C-alpha cells in the first residue's frame, strides 16, 4: 500500500451541474439543502402507454441558450448536458489554459445508456416507419463517449479522454479513475463526472418491464418505498493537485481522498451487502482513514426494496462501532444512472463545503429492517469533515468515493 503522506493531495476547484433540481451548481445545492425534490410527470417522451409517469427531468430544457442549432445537430441530449456541466465547472475553476495544461488534462466521463433518444429515433424510423434511410449523425450522437469527446473539443483539451460504462456506478468509477490519474502524476488536471438522458420511449419500456420503477415518487429507506425514479442530467468536477490549486489561488470546494471498487460476482441485478461493504472499506482504506472517522454517507439509496435493505446492512457491517449520518439525494434528483454518481459526489462535496447534510426527501415510515442514522426530510446543519458517496450498479459493480472538507480561507 502506498504511503498516503507522500502522494499529492487532490482537490475540487470547479463544479458544474444540470439536473431535475437545478440547472446550475447553486440551484442544485439550493434544492438539496431545502430537501426539495424535482420529481414529476415526464414530458419529453410520450408516456401514455407506460405504467409509470414520473421522473426527474431537466425542466423546460432547450439547447438554444447553450448551443447553436448546428452544434446541437451533432449532440444528443446527454452529450449536451455533459458540455453544459463541464463549462460551468471550468468557469468556476478559472482554469488558465496553456498548451501544456491542455496536453496534461484528462477527461473521464460516466455514461450508461448513451444517446438513447437518438437511437430510439433511428429505430423508430427504420422499424416503424420503414424509412429507407436515417440521419448520418445518428452514430456520433449515440456513442457513449460523445460527452467526453465534446468536452475535449470545447476546451481543446488533448490529454487522455475516455468514458466509463458501469451502469449506475459509471460516474463514480470515472471520477475515481481521474482522481487516481492525478494522484499518480499522470495528469495535472482532470474534468470528471457523468451525464445521462434516459427518457426515450424504448428504454423506459425496458425499465417498466423490470418492475423497479415507482408509480409515484422515490422514498429511499422508507418502509413504504416502492421503487426508483429515473433522472437525467450531468455533473462535472475539475480536479487538480492541492499544491497547484493553492499556487494559482483557485477556490477549493473540497478534497477527494479515496476511491474503492469491488465486484459482487453473484447476480446480474440483486445487490450484495458483502460486495457493497468491500467497496466502502476499499475507499476508506485508500483514503488512509478508519471507518470511525466517516461522518456522512451519501447512499446509493435507490428506493428499491432490495437495494435499501442490502445497503443498510452493508453500512452497518463497515461502520460497526459508530453510526454515520446517511441520506439518499436520489429522493430529489432521481436515479440518473451514468450521471448518478457524479450528482451524488457533487452533493457530498457541497455538503462538506456548506456545512449542511442534505436529507432523504419523501421519507414517511421507518423500516424495522433498516437501522441507520437517517437524515429524514430536513437537512442537518452540521459541519462534518469526512464523507463517502456510494454507487452500486446493476451487474454488481461497486464504486465508492471518499471526500474531505477543506478549511475555508
Amino acid at each position, binding site marked *: 500500500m502506498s504511503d498516503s503522506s507522500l502522494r499529492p493531495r487532490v482537490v475540487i476547484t470547479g463544479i458544474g451541474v444540470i439536473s431535475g433540481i437545478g440547472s446550475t451548481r447553486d440551484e442544485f445545492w439550493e434544492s438539496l439543502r431545502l430537501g426539495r425534490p424535482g420529481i414529476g410527470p415526464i414530458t419529453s417522451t410520450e408516456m401514455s402507454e407506460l405504467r409509470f409517469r414520473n421522473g426527474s427531468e431537466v425542466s423546460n430544457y432547450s439547447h438554444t441558450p447553450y448551443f447553436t442549432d448546428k452544434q446541437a445537430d451533432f449532440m444528443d441530449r446527454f452529450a449536451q448536458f455533459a458540455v453544459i456541466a463541464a463549462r460551468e465547472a471550468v468557469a468556476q475553476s478559472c482554469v488558465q489554459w496553456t498548451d501544456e495544461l491542455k496536453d496534461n488534462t484528462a477527461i473521464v466521463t460516466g455514461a450508461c445508456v448513451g444517446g438513447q433518444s437518438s437511437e430510439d429515433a433511428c429505430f423508430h424510423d427504420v422499424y416503424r416507419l420503414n424509412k429507407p434511410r436515417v440521419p448520418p449523425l445518428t452514430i456520433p450522437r449515440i456513442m457513449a463517449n460523445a460527452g467526453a469527446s465534446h468536452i475535449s473539443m470545447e476546451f481543446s483539451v488533448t490529454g487522455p479522454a475516455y468514458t466509463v460504462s458501469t451502469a449506475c456506478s459509471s460516474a463514480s468509477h470515472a471520477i475515481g479513475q481521474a482522481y487516481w490519474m492525478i494522484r499518480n502524476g499522470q495528469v495535472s488536471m482532470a474534468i470528471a463526472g457523468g451525464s445521462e438522458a434516459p427518457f426515450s420511449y424504448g428504454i423506459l419500456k425496458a425499465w417498466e418491464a*423490470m*418492475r423497479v420503477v415507482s408509480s409515484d415518487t422515490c422514498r429511499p429507506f422508507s418502509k413504504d418505498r*416502492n*421503487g426508483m425514479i429515473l433522472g437525467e442530467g450531468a455533473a462535472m468536477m475539475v480536479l487538480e493537485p492541492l499544491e497547484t490549486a493553492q499556487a494559482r489561488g483557485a477556490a477549493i470546494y473540497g478534497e477527494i481522498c479515496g476511491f474503492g471498487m469491488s465486484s459482487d460476482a453473484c*447476480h*446480474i*441485478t*440483486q445487490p450484495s451487502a458483502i460486495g457493497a461493504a468491500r467497496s466502502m472499506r476499499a475507499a476508506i482504506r485508500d483514503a488512509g482513514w478508519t471507518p470511525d472517522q466517516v461522518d456522512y454517507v451519501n447512499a446509493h439509496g435507490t428506493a428499491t426494496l*432490495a437495494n435499501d435493505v442490502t445497503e443498510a446492512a452493508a453500512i452497518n457491517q463497515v461502520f460497526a462501532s459508530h453510526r454515520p449520518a446517511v441520506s439518499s439525494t436520489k429522493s430529489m434528483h432521481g436515479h440518473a444512472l451514468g450521471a448518478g454518481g457524479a450528482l451524488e459526489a457533487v452533493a457530498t462535496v457541497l455538503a462538506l463545503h456548506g456545512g449542511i447534510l442534505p436529507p432523504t426527501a419523501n421519507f414517511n415510515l421507518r423500516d424495522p429492517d433498516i437501522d441507520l442514522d437517517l437524515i429524514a426530510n430536513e437537512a442537518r446543519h452540521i459541519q462534518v469533515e469526512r464523507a463517502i458517496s456510494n454507487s452500486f450498479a446493476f451487474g454488481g459493480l461497486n464504486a465508492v468515493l471518499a471526500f474531505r472538507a477543506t478549511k475555508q480561507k
Partner: protein
Amino acid sequence: MSDELTQRVLKTIASAQRIPVEKVKIDSTFEELGIDSMDGVNILFALENEFNITIPDEAAKQIRSIQEMVDGVDKLLNESSAPAA
C-alpha cells in the same frame, strides 16, 4: 379454474425458467425451482405474453407462490372477458 389453464401456466413457468415442465407443480416453492426476483419478473412477462394480459406492479409484488400465479392469471382472464357494464 380449469385444469387446462393450470397446465398452461405451469408450462409457461417451466419454459421461462428453462426447466422441465414435470418439475413444476402447483405447490412447488420458488426456492425449489430456483426462482429469484429477476426470474420472477421474467416469468410474469412470459405469462403476460402467453395470455395477452397485463399484470399490474402492485399485484406482481404480492405473488409468492405458483398457486398465486395461477390464481392471478385466472382472475385477470375473467376480468378481461367480463361483459362491459
